[in-house]
């Protein structure tokens, strides 16, 4: 399905397509693989907002990238971070803690978190 370019740009206020290195076609194909709609995955994220929202994550997930039983979420590719969170929100990915956290995250919040954690390097 082809959408007008202007429509896509309106969804990408922070230039996510360029930063993430995916074409719109890539994202549509990946979204389809995961059974998700593509538009929320094209949203760019506000890193400052993501840094604040990340406080909800960093009680368990270590910003140093260390692993002690909770998955590492630093340095993830932003697109796949968004996919994981949308899957938790849709409850198609297991774990009640993550499903409950994701349940109240909007598309903008998920994009912000993805942008923030993508910028944190693992140890």
């Amino acid at each position, binding site marked *: 399905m082809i959408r007008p370019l202007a429509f896509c740009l309106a969804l990408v206020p922070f230039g996510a397509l360029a*930063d993430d*290195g995916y074409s719109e076609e890539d994202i549509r*194909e*990946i979204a389809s*693989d995961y059974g998700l709609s593509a538009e929320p995955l094209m949203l760019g994220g506000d*890193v*400052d*907002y993501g*840094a*604040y*929202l990340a*406080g*909800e994550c*960093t*009680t*368990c*997930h*270590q*910003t*140093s990238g*260390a*692993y*002690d*039983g*909770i998955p590492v979420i630093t*340095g*993830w*590719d*932003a*697109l*796949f971070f968004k996919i994981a969170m949308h899957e938790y929100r849709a409850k198609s990915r297991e774990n*009640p*803690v993550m*499903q*409950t*956290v994701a*349940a*109240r995250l909007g598309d903008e919040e998920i994009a912000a978190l993805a*942008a*923030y*954690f*993508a*910028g*944190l*390097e693992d140890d």
Partner: protein
Amino acid sequence: MTLNRRDFIGTAVAASAALSAPMVRAQGAPRVVVVGGGAGGATAARYIAKDSAGAVNVTLIEPTRSYYTCFFSNLYLGGFKQMDELGHSYGGLAANGVNVVHDWATGVDRDAKTVALAGGAAVPYDKLILSPGIDFVDDAVAGWDLSAQNAMPHAYKAGSQTELLKAQLAAMPEGGVFAMVAPPNPYRCPPGPYERVSMIAHHLKNTNPTAKIIVADPKGKFSKMALFQEGWNNHYAGMIDWIGADFGGDVVEVDPAAMTVSIDGEVTKVDVCNVIPAMKAGMIAHAAGVTDGNWAPVNAADMSSKADPDIYVLGDASQQGDMPKSGFSANSQAKVCANAVRGALTGSRVFPARFSNTCWSLIDTNDGVKVGATYKATEEKIAKVDGFISATGESADLRKATYEESEGWYAGIVADMFGAKA
């Protein structure tokens, strides 16, 4: 199409530059004083110092050199953790720009905006964050006061008290009796007493299997009750006698000299007795005049005191609404507070409050359960949004995964409080 997240490298962003910025103290920088270096205070101090990168002068006042976490201290009683694994120094905070002062805060002069220390100094503040945890209500359990804490430990502030209780359990005679006097609501760590019963039962099952456990409880029900009772039946059948309020568990008197516990008039000789009295906000909250009864009421949006807009109260000491008193809750509240305080002092962006909590408990080896929720700020209080709880009858694999998750959480929260270990 096959894609691995490791194939991609995230874009470097401004956030990492901010983290590594040199800590330069500007003269005349606004001053934040934090009292209490636990899950609330240490987190708030660390986040304000880290995110302001020197634009705010942060002082943490905490009497102990090593902080022993109350969370996971039950696992020490069960033999799953060593005490030194629960101890954390403040060196990481000091290295990241927090001025750490080891002293007792004894009073607050709200007009002069200073905190008095036992050592004699008066520390000035623009914003004061109180996170003192709990103290015990006087005369809450008949026959018990703090002078009896060696004969009948509370072990509800972790460290020497926890070690004392463990030593007493190890010295229990064969077939002896352990009694717990459980606290009334609200109190620190709602599942804590029952995880403790589980961990002590685990210890006794291995070392003293004919020993008995009696719990006198002023409540009729408790956190994760169905999960604990199922676990007690599965792992410790016949060992634990829980006496709730309906059966006189609320009519208790202890005699620490005679080592007896009277429950609804029936006197029992015990070998070890863990008295967990009713709780109230830590002393400094009362001294500052920000309490109403036992706790300090706060505004949900930023954890500011309802009595003073320049004082904030975090964690167990606060009266905020629906969140349980837990280390996770205090850590969550601290980050909302830190964002608001930094914004008020430096004009940095302030985002809407959002809170969350999860409490894991261990019932027996690899038998972990959890309860948790998300919360939002309303005009009236911190209000629950949505929650979850482990189910009875879960598979052993899921319970093991839940326990392993709790191990990860512990490493995560202490890194979030004190900074990553070097």
